[in-house]
Each structure stands twice: as structure tokens, then as C-alpha cells.
């Protein structure tokens, strides 16, 4: 592990002004549960680590007339226990409680969860220089790929590790990014994540000198329902093999509006638009739900060892949706 300096800014402005110093290799640290692992395993070697925990008042959850806003440094456990969140966004609570372990949820933050790096075992092997680390190829493509992507691969076959991201995208969340000189940029979380073909080194559009400060979710419409179902291999402390966040408006046993966003399937949280289109307006029988999944799966390109994820997409959609009716 390379030694690094730690910076402890006292405001977001100080963070951005630290970031504006050129020629220094920075890393932002929230809970540090992922970042420190990357440093210790020699995947990255920043010169300066900016400790966001030293910035006060970055972990509040508030509600106004139209939105609920969540500060980036809110820890996952607090998110799951917050009454506003529990009342309005079951999908988010379920996603939060499904991830990692109680210890990690106490330390890991919402911002860190959205910005965490992939757990692809080739990426995490310090002796393997894959495309994501500046190398010339993806080792998963012809290697060991039981946990890798069946959608959106190509250059790189990681799956996005976050459970909160699919849930938040299904809720139409927006995020605020603070850049240099106090510049703020608001974008849809769905547009935050980006595929390897756009930039294989990154999973999102965050620039090197930017920080994610806040997440905003529109208050649910009447008749809104949401749920998160995560299929993992063991009882706890496991990333999603396949998960689905489903939010929508149900009336008369039919989805008038539906958003399906999956984890474990692609380099970014993956929306199953074809499934949404198929399921919307139909009676929610097992057949309809599974056919919806099948429609979406026509675009899947599984690798040698992960075809089983196709079957799991059907199972996960069916389980999630049938729990909503």
C-alpha cells in the first residue's frame, strides 16, 4: 500500500477548492469501506485522500412539498431507518437492508454506495491489468464469468454492485454534483451511470474534480407501490446475483405505470424497458410477468458461465411483482 496524505475539509466549498488544485491525485472518501479496500489491495494509489466525513451537515434527510432529499453522506443504516423513507419508498428501504452487513451499513454511505467500484475479480486482482485499469482486454469475456454481465457488456463485463442505485432509479431520483467554483449540476440518476463503451475506466459521468452531494426523489404519486427483490447466493453479506427494483402505479390489478431496474445484470443498473412495456396494462398473471422477462431477455448476451442469470431474471421479476399485488 502506498502512503497517502489525508485532507479534512470543513465545507463542500473547501472540498471543491481542494479538488481544483492541479497535478495531485485525489480520492474522495466517504465511509471508506470500498475506497480503503482498493488502496490496500493496490488497485489505486491516490496521493491525497479527502475525507468527506470531516465536512459537517452532509447527512440529513429532508422532505419538501415535492421531493425528499438525501445528503450523500447519509449512512445506509440511517437511510433504512428514516421514517420519511420508510413511509414513502419501500423499495429503497428493502434495497438498503439487503446490502452488505449491518456493520458495513453503519459505515457505508449513500453517495459511496452509488459511486463504489465494481467487484469484478479481475479488476480487483492487483496482478491483472484489465481494460478498466488501462490494459488492453477484458479477462472475464473468456475467463471465469459466473457473476458477470449479460446485458450491456462488450468492452468490459462488470456488473454494477450497488443495490441502492436500481431502487433510486426506479423512483426517478436526481442527483446533485458539485464541481469547481461552486458549480452545481443536477441530473437524473439514470443518466449518471454510463456504459463501458463510453468510458471503460469509469462507471459514471462524475468528473475527476467533482463530488456527489445530494440525492432527490420526487414524492410518490397516488397508488404508487414499490419493492426490491434481491437474489443472492447466501443469507447475507452478498452482492446481488440478480435483483430488481420495481416502482409503479397499480390500479385494478394492473400496472398503469411501471419501472423495472435490475442489479447484477449489466455494467450499470439495467432497465428492462421491454418488460415494462409488455407488463404495463396487463393482468398480472405468472405468464404475463414471465413473458415480460422473456421479452427483455431477447437482448441478453450471456457468457459461458452466466446463462443461469436468464432464468433468475424471470424468477426475480415474478417474485417481486407478485409480492406487490
Amino acid at each position, binding site marked *: 500500500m502506498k502512503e497517502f496524505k489525508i485532507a479534512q475539509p470543513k465545507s463542500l466549498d473547501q472540498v471543491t477548492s481542494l479538488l481544483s488544485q492541479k497535478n495531485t491525485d485525489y480520492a474522495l472518501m466517504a465511509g471508506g469501506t470500498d475506497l480503503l479496500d482498493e488502496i490496500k489491495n493496490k488497485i489505486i494509489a491516490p496521493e491525497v485522500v479527502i475525507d468527506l466525513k470531516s465536512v459537517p451537515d452532509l447527512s440529513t434527510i429532508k422532505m419538501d412539498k415535492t421531493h425528499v432529499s438525501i445528503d450523500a453522506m447519509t449512512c445506509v443504516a440511517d437511510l433504512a431507518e428514516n421514517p420519511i423513507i420508510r413511509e414513502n419508498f419501500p423499495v429503497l428501504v428493502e434495497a438498503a437492508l439487503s446490502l452488505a452487513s449491518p456493520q458495513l451499513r453503519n459505515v457505508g454511505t449513500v453517495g459511496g454506495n452509488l459511486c463504489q467500484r465494481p467487484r469484478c475479480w*479481475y479488476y480487483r486482482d492487483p496482478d491483472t491489468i484489465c481494460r478498466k485499469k488501462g490494459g488492453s482486454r477484458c479477462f472475464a469475456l*473468456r*475467463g471465469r464469468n459466473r457473476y458477470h454481465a449479460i446485458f450491456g457488456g462488450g468492452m468490459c463485463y462488470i456488473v454494477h454492485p450497488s443495490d441502492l442505485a436500481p431502487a433510486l432509479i426506479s423512483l426517478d431520483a436526481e442527483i446533485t454534483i458539485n464541481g469547481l467554483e461552486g458549480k452545481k449540476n443536477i441530473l437524473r440518476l439514470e443518466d449518471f451511470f454510463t456504459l463501458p463503451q463510453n468510458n471503460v475506466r469509469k462507471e459514471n459521468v462524475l468528473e475527476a474534480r467533482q463530488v456527489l452531494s445530494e440525492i432527490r426523489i420526487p414524492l410518490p404519486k397516488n397508488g404508487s407501490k414499490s419493492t426490491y427483490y434481491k437474489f443472492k447466493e*447466501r443469507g*447475507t453479506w452478498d452482492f446481488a446475483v440478480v435483483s430488481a427494483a420495481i416502482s409503479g402505479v397499480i390500479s385494478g390489478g394492473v400496472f398503469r405505470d411501471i419501472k423495472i431496474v435490475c442489479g447484477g445484470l449489466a455494467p450499470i443498473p439495467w432497465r428492462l424497458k421491454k418488460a415494462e412495456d409488455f407488463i404495463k396494462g396487463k393482468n398480472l398473471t405468472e405468464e404475463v410477468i414471465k413473458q415480460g422477462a422473456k421479452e427483455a431477455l431477447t437482448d441478453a448476451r450471456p457468457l459461458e*458461465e452466466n446463462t443461469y442469470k436468464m432464468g433468475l431474471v424471470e424468477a426475480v421479476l415474478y417474485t417481486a411483482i407478485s409480492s406487490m399485488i
Partner: protein
Amino acid sequence: MEKKDSRYAMEDSNLWYETYASDQTQHSSEALSSDSDKKFKLIGKHIKRIDGKKIVTGKAPFTQDIKLKGMLIGKILRSPHAKAEVLSIKLDVAKSLSGVKAAILMIRGNIQYAGQMVAAVAAVDEKTADKALELIKVEYKPMPFVVIEEKAREEGSPQVHDKRPNVEQRRGYSRGDVEAGFGKADVVIERTYKTAVEIHQTAETHVSIAKWQGERLTIWDSTQAIHSVRDQLAEVLQIPASRIKVIKQYMGGGFGSKLGLNEQTVAASMLAKETNRPVKVMLTRKANSLCVGNRPSTFQTYKGGVKKDGTITALSLLSHTSGGIRGGDRSSEPMIDVHKCENAKVEDYNIYMNTGPSKPTRAPGLVQGTFGLEGFIEELANEIGMDPLEFRKKNYTTKNRGGTGIPYSSKGLDKAYEIGAKQIGWHKRNKVPGEGKGRIRRGIGMAAGIWWGAGSPGTLADVKLHPDGSVEAVCGTQDIGCGTRTHMAIVTAETLGLEPKDITVKLGNSDYPWAPLSGGSLTTPSVAPALRDAALKAAEHLKGMAASKLKVSASSIVCENFTFQEKGNPKNATPFKEVLGDLSHEIVFHGERKGLPEGYAYNTFGAHFAEVEVDTMTGMIKVIKVVAVHDSGRIINKLTAESQVIGGITQGLSTALFEQRIMDNETGRMVNPNLRDYKIATSMDIPEIVPLFVDSVDPRINILGTKGLGEPPRIPASAVIANSVYNAIGIHIREIPMTPDKVLQALKEKEVAR
């Protein structure tokens, strides 16, 4: 194997068990007087660990906690290549870094697997040692390698060892005439079962501290075998064993990976010699996954013939096994022994590949073999439409070698069947496997297990009495977490009429009287009888002293309730302390675990029963309940015995459902050398576990009639889950771990076949 340097030994990882655990009859002596009729006050009860509080409050010093004055931190540089020639190694730059005290070479010859040690450094702290490793420049010339079993078996694959083929025949076995046996059968089937490589995931990674004082070397080691570490290290360092002392007080798990000398102990010793300062070398979780051993993979093809009435006419096994650069495991033992069968044949092959060397892993070979055999037994029973429990009862035998050998000294497997079946509710199972309906299917299954576990004749232990009334129990065994300290206190206290807390237990030091390594379920049946022997001698002596005080003959005196008292007249008593007060100086009584009478087979047995749920949509297996019934002779401490069983089942469940080393064919490296990607069971995966014991006392095995329990609960624990899944969905998943992808695939194939 005991005497050889384990790093270079080529033997099977489980070979020593066979010499150690099964051939002890050669030490045989006169028949032993057994305590089988004794009523005990402590032995067999639930007794809390005497060191329990110390452990759970973090006060027990584990090897990793030990810090010596002036101690340096040693680190090991490892090869990223699976096979390579080392062209050059430059240590100078690392050596010249301030704070670095030594940098030495640890490699001879070529690199044989990724993770193999190349060099070692010692520095004033961890950070400096880490930096030093980065400054060592190694020039490798990568060579062709093979890390996948199927590929190693292919014609023309890169050869792993210069003088051995990648597929090498091992010792086989044969009795009767299998072909004739198949000829007599009504049904003959053949099935192949596979088991993945399992890593010893000890909570405490391997660690050693070495300190030289002139010619004398002291080692603090996280080990299961203080005496073996001493003897093997003496050989490697070419110094007399008498100058080495090995100490181990508390340990966070070994499971076989700490059974003898490990490389970090050698590195620590060499670095300490070079720097003339104590050196600690502790392995990382990653190194722990690569270099300290593993449970070999197996590919077992069984062929079996059976008559309609359930008689097994012949069994054969073709086995391939890989322990990486070292030999694999012999998985044929269950087939050779457990069920009645006149004709049996085994053909066995090692597959060599460029992965870390195997080491015994809790019940080496038997875990894999039981998964194969007991799965096959269920399938055979199903072929003839017989209940698998009835089928096993029908083929029950009280002699070893499938009924063709010598009688077992004791075998309580029949009782285990009875108790277990009742507890699980055997009648609730699907009469036809997979006959249930709906998304979630339930099933009940069982599996039987056999192990050795007689203990080591020649084990020594002392009881020391002090004039102030205090008592020591001393033995050069080690407590690897199973509760050895407590059982030593129990046996001594029981014999002298005291309480466990009154006994000062001393163990974990190779200067103490010899005891075997703690593996192979040897410890309790070795140490407890030796200590009982010593304590009986002490009691005898003290009764003689008490006789004059009580004015009765020594033979009519008993030790009870901290007193020596006249049998049948507890009022005529004198306190234990007072009798010891008459000693003019401390006195020591030597005890020994005597030999085993010839003509009998000494084995432990167990039967597991489980209930599972399978989600046919996701392929997820959920274990609901496991009932384990064991025959381990007399149980010394019920509480720790139950813990042992719960631990074995937890591990067995974990390998049945989750654990597998995953190798990358292209880089030659393990892709999951961490606890995120190498999945072990979590608390959320553990079902209700009911540990039970067949209350039997072996009549001749030793003076306490006790057998081992280290391995037994691990043995049927994976097989029973596979068999329960079979009962639930009607498909036998013949490969562990039974991950959801495999279950889904099997369900799909069944769907297609319909």
C-alpha cells in the same frame, strides 16, 4: 510424513491418517480395564469451558496478539505466475531501505504455483516490510502451466512435475470379484460425483514468531501440532530438536492447514537468525487461500450392483483427485468400509496441476467420498424402489471392509439411524423423490459416516500435586479451540473428587510430555485416557496417605467432594487439601494412553438427517433442520461435543452450498482469494441443528471408552444436504457446491427429459 519436511513431501495429504489413525494395532498391549461401568459426576455432563470467559472477552492471547521486545515484522514475497523460471532476484535495494533488517531468498528451483514464496524480509514495522517487498526485483520467465483439472488430464497439457505424469495412478484396492458381483445384480448403475477444492478458512490466519537465544530457538506458532512443528523444523534448519521449543496457547482454527510445519515458521526462523531479533510472520487472507493447503477436488465414478431385495452385490470406484502440485485425497474409504458388500474395487488417480499444495482438511477424503458414496447409495435404493434407510439397514455390518474384515470394537451406527430417523420425522419424506408440488419443494434425506479416531497409544500426561493442595494437569497437547483444556480439567477433577476450576491445566508447550498432533480426531481419545491414568495413580497414592488418617484400608476410600472418605460412610472423611499438606514436596504422576487390543477395528460413526427446501424457480437451497447422531464412545464434555457437531455441520453446509476455489485458466491465478468471493456460510444460512450422541462406551479402546469427534460431524454433513435435495426435487445434484446455477440447470434438464 511426520518426520519429513512437509513442504517438499509428495505424499497424499491424507496418507498420514492411514498410518496414524488406522494401523495402531501394532502397538497393542494387554486388554485394558475399562471404566465403562463407572458413574461419573463431571464426565459426560455439560461443563462450561474453563477458559471460555477469557476467550469471549478478548483476553486470551492468540499467537497473532503476541508482541515481543525488539520484535521485527516479517513478510513474504509471492509469485504472481503459476509456473516460471526465476531468472534473477535482486534484494539489495530492499535491504538498503532504512528499517529493513534482512531480506532472504526462499525459493529453490522453479515456481510451481501462483502464490509460492520467493523471498522474505524483516523490518521494524509492517509498513516498511511492505515497502521492502515492493523493492525486490524478480525477473521471471513464465512457463506453460495448467490449473484446471479437466485440462491437466488432456493429452499434451503442460507437465507439472518433471518426473511424473499429470495423471498418476495411486494405490488402489480390491476384494472379491466385482465383475461376478455385477453379474449377480438385478440392477447395475453408474454415476459420477464431483467435489470442488475447498480452502481452510481459519479465522486466525497462519502466524509464527521465532526467537533465538544463542543456539536455542523458541517458536510461538498458531499450530495444531507443536511437536511436529518442532521435529520438522529441526530437520529443515538442521539443528537438534532438543534445542527447539514450540508454544501455542490459543488458536483461531486450523482444520488441518496447521497440522505441521508451515512456510511462515521457516521464514520467521531464518529471518530471526539473520537479524538476531525476534521475528513475527503473519499470513494475509490472500496467502491463506493460496499457500497453506486446501481440500483436493475429486471426480468419483461409482458403479454398483444391487439385487431387488436390497443386497449390494458389488461396488467399484474410479476416482480422480487433485491436490495441486501435491497428491490428492483418497475418497474410497467409505465405499470400502461402511456398507456390507463382498466385492469391491477401487482405481485411483492423482491429477497434478499448478496450484497450491493440498493439506489434510477436516476428514480428508472421507468428506468427498461420503458425498459420492452416500449419494450413490440413495440412487441405488431408488433404483429398486427401496427406502434408503431400510436399504442401509439391510446392508448393515458389524465387521469392517464391508463385512469381510475384522469386527468393529464398537459400532453404534444402527442406534444412530434409529434416533436420527425419529428426530427428523423420517416418515414425512417424499416416498418418491420429487413427488411434491409447487414452487418450493421440501425433502428429507440422510447420510452415514465413518472415521477413525481411536487416539494415539503412547500419549503421555502428568498430574502434579503440590503440598499447598493445588493440582496441575500437564500434557504436551494443544487446544485448537475444541475445549481440550476443559476436558483435561474435567478428567483430572473427576478422578480426584474436585471441580474443573481447581485444576491448573498446562498444555501447548513442546517441552511437556508428548501428545499427538491435534488432527484426525486424535486428541480426546489420546489425552483423556493418559490423564485419567495419571490421575488414578495420584488418587491411589493419596488414598494410601489418607488411609492412616481415616483408619481404614486404602481400597475402601473414595475421593469425592474435595475429601477422601470411607466408602459408604461419608462422615469418616478428611479434606483433600489436608492430605496434600502432608506431602514434603511436589510429586508427579505419569500417565500413559496404552495400546489397542489387536483383532478389532476402531472407528467412530455417525448418521445425519436433514430437511431442506428448494426454490425451483431460483435454484436456491435452504436447509431447515439437521439432526446429527454420533457414536464417539463415551462423551467427556457434552457441551463442547455439541459445539463440535454444530461446527462440523456448519462447515459441511458451507461446502455443500457455497465454497469453491475458482481458478483462471489464462492467468493461472485463483480469482477468489478473499472472503467476499470465496463464499462461506453466514449466520443467516445456518438451520436448526440437533446434536445427539449414541450413549455407548467402547469396551476396549481405552480406559475411558472414549473415541474422537473432531472429524465425524463434518463427514456426512455435505452428503446429507445433497440427499435431501434429491428427495425434494427428484434430481441428484452430483456436484458440490450445489449453487443455484447447477440446481437450475438440473431442473431444466429434467423438464426437457419429460
